[in-house]
C-alpha cells in the first residue's frame, strides 16, 4: 500500500482532524474525572491535550489503514466526550 | 561572585564535561589523538569525569539563580556547551580538547575556593 493520492489525503486529514477530535474528547473526559477541583482538572486536561494530539497523529501514520485510523480516532473521541459530558454533570 | 564569572563558570564546566564524554568515544578520541587507542578503563574514566563535570556545573547555577531557575539554566548550558564543542571539534579537534583542559584548570579551583 503506497502513500499517495486520496489515500494520503484522508490519512493526513485523519491525523489533523481526527487527532484533534480525539484530543478534545479526551480533554472533556479528563476534565470531568481528574481528582482535582473542576476548574483545575479542566486546565490540567487541556494542558495534557497537546501530548494526546501528538500521540494520536503519530499513531495514525503507524496504523496507515484509513478505516482503522478514522474509526480508531472518532469512536473513542465521541465516547470520551459523551462520558465526560455526562460525568461532568454528575460528579 | 563576579557577574561574568557566574555566566561563564557553568558554560565552561558543561563544555569540558561534554568534551570528556566525546573523548570517551573512539571516533572522537581519534579526531584528537589519531595515533592513540585508549583502553576501555581509560574511556570509562573519561566518561565518569565528563559526567562529573556536567553535574558539577549544576552547583554554580543553583548558587546564582536558586534551585528552580538554576536547573532550567543548567539544562540550557548543557545544550550550549555541547553545541560549542561540536563546532570546535569539527574545526580544530586538538584545540577543542586543549580548551577543555584549560576550562577544568580554571573553573574547578574557582568553584572550590568561592
Amino acid at each position, binding site marked *: *500500500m503506497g502513500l499517495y493520492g486520496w489515500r494520503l489525503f484522508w490519512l493526513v486529514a485523519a491525523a489533523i482532524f481526527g487527532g484533534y477530535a480525539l*484530543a478534545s474528547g479526551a480533554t472533556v473526559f479528563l476534565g470531568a474525572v481528574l481528582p482535582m477541583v473542576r476548574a483545575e482538572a*479542566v486546565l490540567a486536561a487541556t494542558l495534557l491535550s497537546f501530548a494526546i494530539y*501528538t500521540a494520536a497523529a503519530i499513531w495514525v501514520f503507524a496504523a496507515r489503514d484509513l478505516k482503522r485510523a478514522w474509526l480508531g480516532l472518532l469512536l473513542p473521541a465521541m465516547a470520551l466526550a459523551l462520558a465526560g459530558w455526562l460525568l461532568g454533570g454528575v460528579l | 561572585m563576579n557577574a561574568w564569572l557566574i555566566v561563564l563558570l557553568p558554560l565552561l564546566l558543561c563544555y569540558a564535561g561534554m568534551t570528556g564524554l566525546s573523548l570517551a*568515544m573512539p571516533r572522537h578520541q581519534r579526531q584528537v589523538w589519531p595515533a592513540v587507542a585508549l583502553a576501555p578503563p581509560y574511556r570509562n574514566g573519561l566518561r565518569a569525569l565528563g559526567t562529573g563535570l556536567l553535574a558539577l556545573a549544576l552547583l554554580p547555577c543553583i548558587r546564582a539563580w536558586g534551585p*528552580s*531557575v538554576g536547573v532550567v539554566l543548567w539544562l*540550557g548550558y548543557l545544550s550550549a556547551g555541547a*553545541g560549542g564543542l561540536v563546532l570546535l571539534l569539527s574545526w580544530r579537534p586538538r584545540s577543542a580538547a586543549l580548551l577543555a583542559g584549560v576550562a577544568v584548570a580554571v573553573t574547578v579551583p574557582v568553584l572550590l575556593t568561592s
Partner: protein
Amino acid sequence: MNSGTAIAREEPAGAFRQIMAWLHTWGGLLAGWLLFAIFFTGSLGVFDDAITRWMKPEAPAVELRDWDRASLVRMGQSYLEETVPRSHFWSIGLPTKDIPVIRLFYEDEQEQFQSERLNPATGEPMPNDAERETEGGHHFVHMHYEFHAGTAGVWLVGVFTMAMLVALVSGVIIHKRIFKDFFSFRPGKGQRSWLDAHNAVSVLSLPFLFMIAYTGLATFYSLYMPAAIEVHYPEEGSFFAELLDQPRHRPETDVDAAVVPLDGLLLRAEAEMGRAASFVVVEHPGDSSAAARVFGVFDEAEARGKLLPGTSGRVEFDAVNGELWDVQVPGEIRGGAATATQAVMRTLHFAGFGGYTVRWLYFLLGMAGAAMMATGAILVMVKRRQKSLREFGIHTPRVYRLVEVLNVGSIAGLALSCIAMLWLNRLIPIGIEDRAAWEIRGFFLVWALTLLHAALRPAGRAWVEQLLVCAALCLTLPVLNALTTGSHVLVYWAQGDGPRLGVELTVIVFGLLCGLGAYGLLRRQRQARPLLNAARPPLLQRGAESEARG
C-alpha cells in the same frame, strides 16, 4: 476489518520507521518554512526591548517625571470618553522609563483596535513628528506568535507548532543513533554534512525545542483546545473566574451608564496593592456592566529567579458605582497545581526569569531551532538534487523547483527582510501618517520580493545573491545609522549604551555569518561548475533536469 493489521504484520520490520521518515520529511518541510520564521523572529523577540531602544534613536519627546498619576489617568479618561464613549475596551497605560507618555488602547465603533499617545504635560495627543513612530522589537514578537494577523495568525502558529511536535517525535524515532552521533559534524561532505548539521542542532537543542513548542501551545491553551472549557463551563468567562477565584465576567446589558472617575479607583487600588499602578483597563465602558481593573507595575528584579512569580498586583472594581470587587496583592498566587503548572510554562516560554543569561541562552537555542528547520529543508533538496526520487510522477521537477524557491524565500528571504526592517526604520521619514505600519508593510514587501527573486533566478544563484544582500545590509547598518542619526556602534560603545551596542554588534556578527555562507556556497559552485557546465544547466536544477530527461 482487519486487513490493515494483516498488512502491517506482513510488512518488513522497517515499515514503521519508513513511514515516520516520510512524515518527518514532508511534514517537517511543509511546516518548516513558516516555523523558521517563527523561531527566527522569536529569537530576535527575546531582545525586543533592546531592539526597540535601537529603533528609537532620538531622545524621548517628553522626559519621564514624577507625574501625579491620578491626573494622568484623568487625562486618559477624558480623551477616551470624547473619542469612544461606548466601547468594548479601554486601556490607559502610565508612563514608563522606556515609553514616557500616556498610552491609550481602545476598540472603536467598528471594533478595531486603536492606539493613541498623550503628552503627560498637556493631555494632548502627541503629534506624528514628535518621535519616530515604530513597533520596534515588538514587530518580531508579533511575527513570532501571530504574523501580524490577529487570532487567525495565532491559530496558524498553533497549527505549525503542533506539526513541529509531530516532526520532533518522528525525527527522534527515525534517528537511530542519537547518542552515537551526538558530537558528530563532518563539514565539507555535501549531503552527509547537511544531515550531520541537522542532527546535531536538533539533538543538542531537543529539550529546549520540546519545551518551547509545548509551552507555546500551553500559553494559548484556552484558544487552541477549548473543548473541556466549553463543555464544563458554558457560561462565558466562568472558567477563569472559578480557576483564579476572580469576580465573574458580566455580559453587556446595553443599558447606558457612565464610568466613575478612574483616578479615584487608581488611588484606592494603589493603596490596596501597596505599589504604583501601570495600567488601568475598563471592560465595556459606557455600559452598565462595565468593570475596571488596575494592574501593578511589573518588577523585573522581583520576578528574577522565580519560575512562579505570582501577580504584579491586580485590583478589580465595578466601574459604574466604584465598588471594590477583588484585590490580588503583588506576589499572590491563586489556584492549584494545574494553574501553577500553566504559569510556570508561561514563564519558561517568555524568557524573562533570569536576566541576560537566560535571554542569550534562549536566543542561541532559538536560533539553533531555526537552524534545524533550515538545514532540514535544505537537506530535503540536497538529497533530491543528486538523484530525483520521483515522488510526484511527471510533476516531480516542478514540485522540486517549488520547494527550492520556497526554501530560499523562507530562509534567506526572511533573514533579509528582518534586517531590511532595521533599514526601513532609519529610512522612512519621521512624521508621515501610519509610520509604524509602513515599517511593517515594508518588511512584508521585502519578504515578498525575496520570494519573487527566488522564483526568477536559478536556486543556486538566488541563495548566494540573497545571502550577499543580507550580509551587505547587516555590515553597512552602522554606516546607515551614522549617516541618518550620527550614532553607530563605536558611539554606543563610548557611551556604554549596552542594548543598542548589543543590537548592532549582533547584526554585524550575523552579517559576517551570511557573508561566510555566501562565500562558501560560491566556492563550491565554482568547483562544481567545470564538471557540470557542458552537460547541465546551473547546479541546483540538476535533479529536476535529469528527472525530466529520464
